Protein backbone atom coordinates (compact mmCIF):
# COMPACT_ATOMS: atom_id res chain seq x y z
CA UNK A 1 0.00 0.00 0.00
CA UNK A 2 1.47 3.30 -1.07
CA UNK A 3 0.24 6.81 -1.41
CA UNK A 4 -0.75 7.57 -4.98
CA UNK A 5 1.84 10.01 -6.31
CA UNK A 6 1.85 9.16 -10.02
CA UNK A 7 0.86 12.53 -11.54
CA UNK A 8 -0.95 11.00 -14.51
CA UNK A 9 -3.11 8.65 -12.47
CA UNK A 10 -3.71 11.33 -9.86
CA UNK A 11 -4.80 13.77 -12.56
CA UNK A 12 -7.24 11.24 -13.98
CA UNK A 13 -8.59 10.41 -10.52
CA UNK A 14 -9.10 14.11 -9.80
CA UNK A 15 -10.67 14.66 -13.19
CA UNK A 16 -13.35 12.06 -12.42
CA UNK A 17 -13.98 13.60 -9.00
CA UNK A 18 -14.40 17.11 -10.39
CA UNK A 19 -17.39 15.77 -12.32
CA UNK A 20 -19.13 14.68 -9.09
CA UNK A 21 -22.30 16.56 -10.03
CA UNK A 22 -22.71 14.50 -13.19
CA UNK A 23 -24.08 10.97 -12.83
CA UNK A 24 -21.76 8.30 -14.16
CA UNK A 25 -18.37 9.68 -13.15
CA UNK A 26 -18.53 8.42 -9.56
CA UNK A 27 -20.52 5.22 -9.72
CA UNK A 28 -21.69 3.50 -6.53
CA UNK A 29 -22.24 -0.24 -6.70
CA UNK A 30 -25.18 -1.51 -4.67
CA UNK A 31 -22.99 -2.96 -1.89
CA UNK A 32 -21.14 0.33 -1.58
CA UNK A 33 -24.44 2.21 -1.45
CA UNK A 34 -25.70 0.04 1.39
CA UNK A 35 -22.33 0.49 3.11
CA UNK A 36 -22.76 4.24 2.78
CA UNK A 37 -26.29 4.17 4.17
CA UNK A 38 -25.29 2.06 7.15
CA UNK A 39 -21.90 3.64 7.93
CA UNK A 40 -22.95 7.27 7.60
CA UNK A 41 -26.75 7.09 7.71
CA UNK A 42 -28.54 10.23 6.67
CA UNK A 43 -25.84 11.22 4.18
CA UNK A 44 -27.24 11.05 0.65
CA UNK A 45 -25.31 9.70 -2.29
CA UNK A 46 -24.81 13.12 -3.91
CA UNK A 47 -23.25 14.47 -0.70
CA UNK A 48 -20.89 11.51 -0.63
CA UNK A 49 -19.60 12.30 -4.14
CA UNK A 50 -18.99 15.90 -3.16
CA UNK A 51 -17.23 14.79 0.02
CA UNK A 52 -14.81 12.63 -1.98
CA UNK A 53 -14.13 15.58 -4.28
CA UNK A 54 -13.43 17.89 -1.33
CA UNK A 55 -11.22 15.29 0.37
CA UNK A 56 -8.98 14.75 -2.65
CA UNK A 57 -9.12 17.99 -4.61
CA UNK A 58 -9.44 20.60 -1.87
CA UNK A 59 -7.88 18.99 1.21
CA UNK A 60 -5.23 17.01 -0.69
CA UNK A 61 -6.40 13.87 1.11
CA UNK A 62 -4.42 10.69 0.74
CA UNK A 63 -5.26 8.08 -1.90
CA UNK A 64 -3.66 4.68 -1.44
CA UNK A 65 -2.84 2.80 -4.60
CA UNK A 66 -3.08 -0.90 -3.78
CA UNK A 67 -1.82 -3.63 -6.07
CA UNK A 68 -4.67 -6.10 -6.42
CA UNK A 69 -3.66 -9.43 -4.92
CA UNK A 70 -7.11 -10.94 -4.44
CA UNK A 71 -7.24 -13.69 -7.01
CA UNK A 72 -10.99 -14.01 -7.30
CA UNK A 73 -13.41 -12.31 -9.63
CA UNK A 74 -14.13 -9.48 -10.11
CA UNK A 75 -11.13 -8.15 -8.16
CA UNK A 76 -8.61 -9.98 -10.35
CA UNK A 77 -9.86 -8.12 -13.42
CA UNK A 78 -8.16 -4.99 -12.07
CA UNK A 79 -4.47 -4.31 -11.58
CA UNK A 80 -4.99 -1.79 -8.76
CA UNK A 81 -7.65 -0.46 -6.49
CA UNK A 82 -7.58 2.89 -4.72
CA UNK A 83 -8.43 3.38 -1.04
CA UNK A 84 -9.50 6.64 0.58
CA UNK A 85 -10.24 7.40 4.22
CA UNK A 86 -12.16 10.66 4.35
CA UNK A 87 -14.12 11.90 7.35
CA UNK A 88 -17.71 12.50 6.34
CA UNK A 89 -20.31 13.85 8.73
CA UNK A 90 -17.88 13.26 11.59
CA UNK A 91 -17.26 9.62 10.71
CA UNK A 92 -14.00 8.33 9.27
CA UNK A 93 -14.85 5.93 6.49
CA UNK A 94 -12.91 3.48 4.36
CA UNK A 95 -13.74 3.78 0.67
CA UNK A 96 -12.49 1.24 -1.87
CA UNK A 97 -12.59 2.40 -5.47
CA UNK A 98 -11.53 1.39 -8.96
CA UNK A 99 -10.31 3.84 -11.57
CA UNK A 100 -11.27 3.27 -15.17
CA UNK A 101 -9.56 3.21 -17.59
CA UNK A 102 -6.43 1.65 -16.13
CA UNK A 103 -4.63 1.97 -19.40
CA UNK A 104 -3.18 5.34 -20.36
CA UNK A 105 -3.75 4.55 -24.01
CA UNK A 106 -7.51 4.50 -23.61
CA UNK A 107 -9.41 7.49 -24.92
CA UNK A 108 -12.26 6.95 -22.46
CA UNK A 109 -12.92 9.64 -19.90
CA UNK A 110 -11.85 8.59 -16.40
CA UNK A 111 -14.51 7.33 -14.02
CA UNK A 112 -14.43 6.06 -10.45
CA UNK A 113 -16.32 2.99 -9.31
CA UNK A 114 -16.96 2.79 -5.58
CA UNK A 115 -17.08 -0.85 -4.59
CA UNK A 116 -16.93 -0.82 -0.80
CA UNK A 117 -17.66 1.60 2.05
CA UNK A 118 -17.26 0.76 5.75
CA UNK A 119 -16.05 2.44 8.96
CA UNK A 120 -12.30 3.12 8.77
Amino acid sequence: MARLTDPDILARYRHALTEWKVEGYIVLKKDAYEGLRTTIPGVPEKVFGEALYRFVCEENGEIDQVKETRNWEPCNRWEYHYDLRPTIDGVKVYVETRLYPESFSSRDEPEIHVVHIKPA
Partner: protein
Amino acid sequence: MSAKKKPEPQSRPFPWLCSDCVTRTVVPTVIDFTAKVKHDAVIHELHLPGIEVPRCQTCGDLAITTAIDERVNEALRAKLHLLSPAQIRANIEKLDLTQQELADWLDVAPETVSRWMTGTLIQSSRMNKRLRMFFAFPTAREMLRRLDEDPQLGIEARVDRDRGEADRTGDPPTSAVQSKPANPVGQRGFAHALAVERIFPRVKSNYQDVDPRRYVTPVFSY
Protein backbone atom coordinates in the same frame (compact mmCIF):
# COMPACT_ATOMS: atom_id res chain seq x y z
CA MET B 1 -45.76 33.44 -10.42
CA SER B 2 -44.44 30.30 -12.03
CA ALA B 3 -42.95 27.63 -9.80
CA LYS B 4 -39.25 27.03 -10.17
CA LYS B 5 -38.58 23.72 -11.85
CA LYS B 6 -35.93 21.59 -10.21
CA PRO B 7 -33.11 21.04 -12.71
CA GLU B 8 -32.75 17.47 -13.87
CA PRO B 9 -29.53 15.89 -12.64
CA GLN B 10 -26.90 15.71 -15.34
CA SER B 11 -25.91 12.27 -16.44
CA ARG B 12 -23.41 10.63 -18.75
CA PRO B 13 -25.10 8.87 -21.63
CA PHE B 14 -25.75 5.17 -21.24
CA PRO B 15 -24.49 2.48 -21.52
CA TRP B 16 -22.20 2.83 -18.53
CA LEU B 17 -19.28 0.58 -17.65
CA CYS B 18 -19.77 -2.30 -15.22
CA SER B 19 -16.72 -2.53 -12.97
CA ASP B 20 -17.40 -6.18 -12.15
CA CYS B 21 -17.43 -7.69 -15.62
CA VAL B 22 -15.72 -4.68 -17.28
CA THR B 23 -18.24 -4.44 -20.10
CA ARG B 24 -20.08 -1.30 -21.14
CA THR B 25 -23.52 -2.80 -20.83
CA VAL B 26 -25.10 -0.94 -17.90
CA VAL B 27 -28.45 0.54 -18.93
CA PRO B 28 -31.56 1.68 -17.04
CA THR B 29 -33.75 -1.33 -16.32
CA VAL B 30 -37.07 -1.51 -14.48
CA ILE B 31 -36.70 -3.86 -11.51
CA ASP B 32 -38.06 -4.44 -8.01
CA PHE B 33 -35.35 -2.83 -5.91
CA THR B 34 -34.57 -3.56 -2.27
CA ALA B 35 -32.11 -1.59 -0.16
CA LYS B 36 -30.97 -1.78 3.44
CA VAL B 37 -30.49 1.60 5.08
CA LYS B 38 -29.77 2.58 8.65
CA HIS B 39 -31.66 5.25 10.53
CA ASP B 40 -31.35 5.92 14.25
CA ALA B 41 -29.17 2.82 14.65
CA VAL B 42 -31.86 0.56 13.16
CA ILE B 43 -31.47 -1.08 9.75
CA HIS B 44 -34.58 -0.82 7.58
CA GLU B 45 -35.15 -2.95 4.51
CA LEU B 46 -37.02 -0.89 1.93
CA HIS B 47 -38.76 -2.34 -1.10
CA LEU B 48 -39.27 -0.17 -4.17
CA PRO B 49 -41.22 -2.10 -6.78
CA GLY B 50 -40.88 -1.26 -10.46
CA ILE B 51 -38.22 1.45 -10.45
CA GLU B 52 -35.60 2.20 -13.05
CA VAL B 53 -32.09 1.21 -11.94
CA PRO B 54 -28.92 1.14 -14.08
CA ARG B 55 -28.18 -2.57 -14.39
CA CYS B 56 -25.47 -4.52 -16.16
CA GLN B 57 -27.03 -6.61 -18.91
CA THR B 58 -24.09 -9.03 -18.70
CA CYS B 59 -23.69 -9.79 -14.98
CA GLY B 60 -26.74 -8.11 -13.41
CA ASP B 61 -24.75 -5.76 -11.16
CA LEU B 62 -26.50 -2.54 -10.12
CA ALA B 63 -25.31 1.07 -10.03
CA ILE B 64 -27.02 3.52 -7.69
CA THR B 65 -27.83 7.01 -8.90
CA THR B 66 -29.03 10.13 -7.10
CA ALA B 67 -32.57 9.51 -8.37
CA ILE B 68 -32.62 6.05 -6.76
CA ASP B 69 -31.15 7.44 -3.55
CA GLU B 70 -33.94 10.02 -3.44
CA ARG B 71 -36.55 7.29 -3.96
CA VAL B 72 -35.00 5.33 -1.09
CA ASN B 73 -35.14 8.45 1.10
CA GLU B 74 -38.80 8.98 0.19
CA ALA B 75 -39.59 5.39 1.12
CA LEU B 76 -37.71 5.74 4.41
CA ARG B 77 -39.53 8.98 5.24
CA ALA B 78 -42.89 7.40 4.42
CA LYS B 79 -42.14 4.36 6.58
CA LEU B 80 -40.99 6.39 9.60
CA HIS B 81 -43.34 9.38 9.13
CA LEU B 82 -40.42 11.76 8.76
CA LEU B 83 -41.14 15.25 7.45
CA SER B 84 -39.85 15.82 3.93
CA PRO B 85 -37.58 18.77 3.05
CA ALA B 86 -40.51 20.41 1.22
CA GLN B 87 -42.75 20.05 4.28
CA ILE B 88 -40.09 21.53 6.56
CA ARG B 89 -39.57 24.43 4.14
CA ALA B 90 -43.31 25.07 3.85
CA ASN B 91 -43.79 25.07 7.62
CA ILE B 92 -40.91 27.46 8.21
CA GLU B 93 -42.37 29.76 5.58
CA LYS B 94 -45.87 29.52 7.04
CA LEU B 95 -44.64 30.44 10.52
CA ASP B 96 -42.53 33.22 9.02
CA LEU B 97 -39.37 31.92 10.66
CA THR B 98 -35.78 32.05 9.58
CA GLN B 99 -33.57 28.95 9.61
CA GLN B 100 -31.61 30.56 12.42
CA GLU B 101 -34.77 31.03 14.50
CA LEU B 102 -35.88 27.44 14.05
CA ALA B 103 -32.36 26.28 14.90
CA ASP B 104 -32.47 28.35 18.09
CA TRP B 105 -35.85 26.92 19.08
CA LEU B 106 -34.68 23.35 18.58
CA ASP B 107 -31.14 23.82 19.93
CA VAL B 108 -29.45 22.69 16.72
CA ALA B 109 -26.95 24.36 14.41
CA PRO B 110 -28.42 26.49 11.61
CA GLU B 111 -26.46 24.36 9.15
CA THR B 112 -28.41 21.33 10.36
CA VAL B 113 -31.72 23.04 9.58
CA SER B 114 -30.36 24.04 6.19
CA ARG B 115 -29.38 20.44 5.44
CA TRP B 116 -32.82 19.15 6.47
CA MET B 117 -34.39 21.70 4.12
CA THR B 118 -32.22 20.72 1.18
CA GLY B 119 -32.50 17.01 1.84
CA THR B 120 -28.79 16.55 2.34
CA LEU B 121 -29.42 15.26 5.86
CA ILE B 122 -32.32 13.21 7.14
CA GLN B 123 -33.42 14.23 10.61
CA SER B 124 -33.44 11.66 13.41
CA SER B 125 -36.81 10.32 14.59
CA ARG B 126 -36.33 12.14 17.88
CA MET B 127 -35.70 15.44 16.12
CA ASN B 128 -38.53 14.72 13.69
CA LYS B 129 -40.91 14.42 16.63
CA ARG B 130 -39.73 17.78 17.97
CA LEU B 131 -40.17 19.34 14.54
CA ARG B 132 -43.69 17.96 14.17
CA MET B 133 -44.65 19.08 17.66
CA PHE B 134 -43.17 22.52 17.03
CA PHE B 135 -45.04 22.94 13.74
CA ALA B 136 -48.31 21.33 14.86
CA PHE B 137 -48.98 22.93 18.22
CA PRO B 138 -48.86 26.68 18.92
CA THR B 139 -48.87 25.68 22.60
CA ALA B 140 -45.56 23.85 22.10
CA ARG B 141 -44.02 27.01 20.65
CA GLU B 142 -45.49 29.01 23.53
CA MET B 143 -44.06 26.54 26.02
CA LEU B 144 -40.60 26.80 24.47
CA ARG B 145 -40.86 30.59 24.53
CA ARG B 146 -41.79 30.53 28.22
CA LEU B 147 -38.91 28.18 29.00
CA ASP B 148 -36.53 30.65 27.39
CA GLU B 149 -38.01 33.54 29.36
CA ASP B 150 -38.16 31.85 32.75
CA PRO B 151 -35.14 29.71 33.66
CA GLN B 152 -36.90 28.64 36.89
CA LEU B 153 -39.52 26.65 34.95
CA GLY B 154 -39.08 22.91 35.28
CA ILE B 155 -36.92 23.00 38.38
CA GLU B 156 -39.91 21.85 40.39
CA ALA B 157 -42.49 19.57 38.79
CA ARG B 158 -46.06 20.84 38.70
CA VAL B 159 -48.96 18.42 38.97
CA ASP B 160 -52.22 19.13 37.17
CA ARG B 161 -54.80 17.54 39.49
CA ASP B 162 -57.68 18.65 37.31
CA ARG B 163 -56.36 16.30 34.63
CA GLY B 164 -56.09 13.37 36.99
CA GLU B 165 -52.35 13.53 37.51
CA ALA B 166 -51.00 12.22 40.80
CA ASP B 167 -47.70 13.02 42.43
CA ARG B 168 -45.60 11.02 44.90
CA THR B 169 -46.83 13.03 47.90
CA GLY B 170 -49.70 10.58 48.26
CA ASP B 171 -52.49 13.00 47.44
CA PRO B 172 -55.01 11.44 45.06
CA PRO B 173 -55.83 13.20 41.82
CA THR B 174 -59.08 15.15 41.87
CA SER B 175 -60.63 13.08 39.09
CA ALA B 176 -59.95 9.76 40.83
CA VAL B 177 -61.63 10.91 44.02
CA GLN B 178 -64.60 12.48 42.25
CA SER B 179 -64.98 9.86 39.54
CA LYS B 180 -68.34 8.56 38.44
CA PRO B 181 -69.67 5.28 39.89
CA ALA B 182 -69.25 3.55 36.52
CA ASN B 183 -65.48 3.98 36.81
CA PRO B 184 -64.06 0.85 38.49
CA VAL B 185 -61.32 2.95 40.05
CA GLY B 186 -63.88 5.17 41.69
CA GLN B 187 -66.04 2.35 43.03
CA ARG B 188 -63.50 1.13 45.54
CA GLY B 189 -61.40 4.23 45.88
CA PHE B 190 -58.03 5.44 44.81
CA ALA B 191 -55.97 3.51 47.37
CA HIS B 192 -57.54 0.26 46.17
CA ALA B 193 -56.85 1.05 42.53
CA LEU B 194 -53.28 2.01 43.33
CA ALA B 195 -52.71 -1.20 45.25
CA VAL B 196 -54.14 -3.31 42.45
CA GLU B 197 -52.07 -1.50 39.89
CA ARG B 198 -48.91 -2.14 41.88
CA ILE B 199 -49.69 -5.83 42.05
CA PHE B 200 -51.22 -6.29 38.62
CA PRO B 201 -49.88 -3.51 36.45
CA ARG B 202 -51.06 -5.21 33.24
CA VAL B 203 -54.54 -6.41 34.22
CA LYS B 204 -56.26 -3.15 35.06
CA SER B 205 -59.52 -4.30 33.48
CA ASN B 206 -60.15 -6.58 36.46
CA TYR B 207 -59.94 -3.88 39.09
CA GLN B 208 -63.39 -4.48 40.62
CA ASP B 209 -62.93 -8.24 40.88
CA VAL B 210 -59.67 -8.18 42.76
CA ASP B 211 -59.16 -7.71 46.45
CA PRO B 212 -55.51 -6.61 46.75
CA ARG B 213 -55.39 -7.56 50.47
CA ARG B 214 -55.57 -11.22 49.45
CA TYR B 215 -52.25 -10.87 47.65
CA VAL B 216 -50.52 -8.49 50.02
CA THR B 217 -51.06 -10.78 53.05
CA PRO B 218 -49.67 -14.28 52.53
CA VAL B 219 -52.39 -16.94 52.70
CA PHE B 220 -51.43 -20.36 54.02
CA SER B 221 -53.92 -23.12 53.36
CA TYR B 222 -52.23 -26.22 54.76
